[in-house]
């Protein structure tokens, strides 16, 4: 496995946890930040801070420039046609809710179907449920095979004229499964259903080309891809964005306001009400530069290598450990959720913390998937560019210890 030499760029890696070096294995929840991003954020507040878009003075022009430059960078990062297609939100969750509220309430009728998958994060389930409750539409699921991949054999029946929205995750945050989204989007487009991709785990870990995918809407979060918290993105095609009604109302998004009515701007500003999170957006631009500099293909390659190594090592610990998700690394990202019979995920996580290892345990905001997998919770390690073989070794050693400590339970 080739090492990525970027680890030293991340100041938090110096941190000790219970006197042990930090082994951060929860990047699927949120990523750590390189010094350049942290410094850019602090520098912005020290030098350029002012409200954007409306000020005829130097600081405001600088601030606006920084904000709009990031919009441009994001567009290029996912190969969008124009920065016009990039809306800044708070996170993936808000991006998806924006679609459900703005597109959904404009276009959905009783009996319409919304197709999702059993591996969705709650953020790509609950907004549709709220929409269904209000509009009388119905949620349907593409079935999931036992190997953690979607069963597409009946896709032509599942996607019908009744289907108005097809929304699925680019990559599962539990199984690691990378879905064949291009194929599914094509089917959705054929029946003129709205195609939506939850890219929360896609944009940080995979090269993304929204034009090639021909997707209507693609949502992701800056905080999972080296950027600050509080910034989300919604990419949308021109014609889709213009067919959506405004969502939040207020400053910035309006054109004219009268006593009894208002008109609004074109996208993207139409969807950006109030003072945006411009400082974090400015710093997010630096995160994108950083990722572009590494190259998303290299990010992906590194994650294949480290996940491969981790899966091999974990299997050696104990035959009874079940790793969820596909074996094939061509369709699997750097997420390793597992079940260690007799050792509860919460106890594993708690124990590993004493060894400085930070993994997640729980339902990973995917309760329907947990039910489908027949578990109430799993432990999950997830990887990013700063992780190396040593991290995996520490994790594996600690997991072994956990097995010995908790494992001889009588059940």
């Amino acid at each position: 496995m080739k090492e990525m030499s970027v680890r030293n760029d991340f100041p938090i890696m110096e941190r000790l946890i219970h006197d042990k070096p930090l082994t951060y294995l929860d990047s699927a929840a949120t990523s750590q930040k390189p010094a350049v991003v942290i410094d850019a954020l602090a520098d912005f507040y020290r030098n350029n801070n002012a409200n954007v878009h409306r000020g005829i003075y130097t600081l405001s022009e600088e601030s606006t420039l920084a904000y709009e430059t990031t919009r441009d960078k994001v567009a290029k990062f996912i190969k969008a046609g124009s920065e016009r297609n990039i809306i800044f939100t708070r996170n993936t969750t808000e991006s998806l809710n924006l679609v459900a509220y703005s597109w959904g309430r404009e276009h959905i009728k009783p009996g319409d179907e919304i197709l999702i998958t059993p591996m969705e994060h709650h953020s790509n389930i609950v907004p549709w449920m709220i929409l269904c409750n209000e509009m009388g539409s119905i949620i349907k699921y593409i079935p999931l095979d036992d190997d953690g991949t979607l069963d597409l054999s009946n896709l032509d029946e599942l996607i019908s004229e009744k289907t108005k929205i097809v929304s699925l995750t680019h990559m599962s945050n539990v199984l690691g499964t990378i879905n064949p989204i291009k194929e599914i989007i094509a089917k959705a487009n054929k029946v003129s259903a709205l195609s939506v991709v939850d890219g929360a785990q896609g944009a940080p870990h995979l090269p993304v080309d929204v034009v090639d995918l021909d997707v209507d809407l693609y949502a992701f979060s800056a905080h999972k891809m080296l950027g600050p918290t509080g910034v989300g993105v919604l990419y949308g095609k021109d014609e889709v964005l213009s067919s959506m009604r405004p969502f939040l109302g207020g400053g910035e998004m309006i054109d004219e306001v009268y006593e009894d009515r208002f008109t609004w701007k074109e996208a993207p500003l139409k969807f950006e009400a109030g003072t945006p999170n411009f400082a974090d957006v400015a710093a997010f631009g630096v995160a994108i530069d950083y990722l572009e500099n590494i190259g998303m293909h290299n990010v992906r390659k590194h994650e294949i290598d480290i996940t491969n190594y981790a899966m091999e090592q974990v299997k050696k610990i104990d035959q009874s450990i079940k790793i969820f998700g596909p074996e094939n690394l061509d369709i699997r990202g750097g997420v390793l959720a597992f079940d260690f019979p007799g050792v509860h995920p919460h106890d594993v996580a708690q124990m590993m913390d004493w060894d400085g290892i930070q993994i997640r345990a729980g339902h990973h905001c995917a309760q329907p998937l947990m039910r489908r997998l027949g578990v109430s919770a799993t432990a999950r390690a997830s990887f990013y560019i700063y992780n190396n073989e040593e991290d995996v070794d520490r994790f594996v050693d600690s997991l072994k210890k956990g097995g010995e400590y908790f494992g001889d339970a009588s059940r």
Partner: protein
Amino acid sequence: MVMPPDEPKFDDLYKELILDHYRYPHNRGVLEKPDVDMQQHNPVCGDKIRLTAIIKDGAISQIEFLGQGCAISQASASMLTDRVKGLNLGDVDKLSINFRDMLKGGKPDEQLMQDLMSLQGVSKYPIRIKCAVLAWDTLQEALGLK
């Protein structure tokens, strides 16, 4: 830089007694024809506890549990069955109030708590308190003590 107030130790949480109860739970099973039969779960972590008990003369004469979950939740359930067997409902109520109070950081009555003292370390782990309390929630609900 934010730091939690105390630097706890591993063994404060997973005391030997807890691990013993986790590995070899006491009173594990389901009673036949129980007077009370109650199941509860914690949606956040998926822990589950089912309690069955037989009540005689206002006291718990028999009690068993079945469950799924982490060491804390299962050990707590096992200890609970040991501790409350034979107690009348008034004493169970007093005990559960004292137990909850201990987990919120209060000073427990060691005489009253006995083995349950071993769960005191959980009070330093806000996210795990629910695990320790689940069996007690189930019992209080079952006995109509809430």
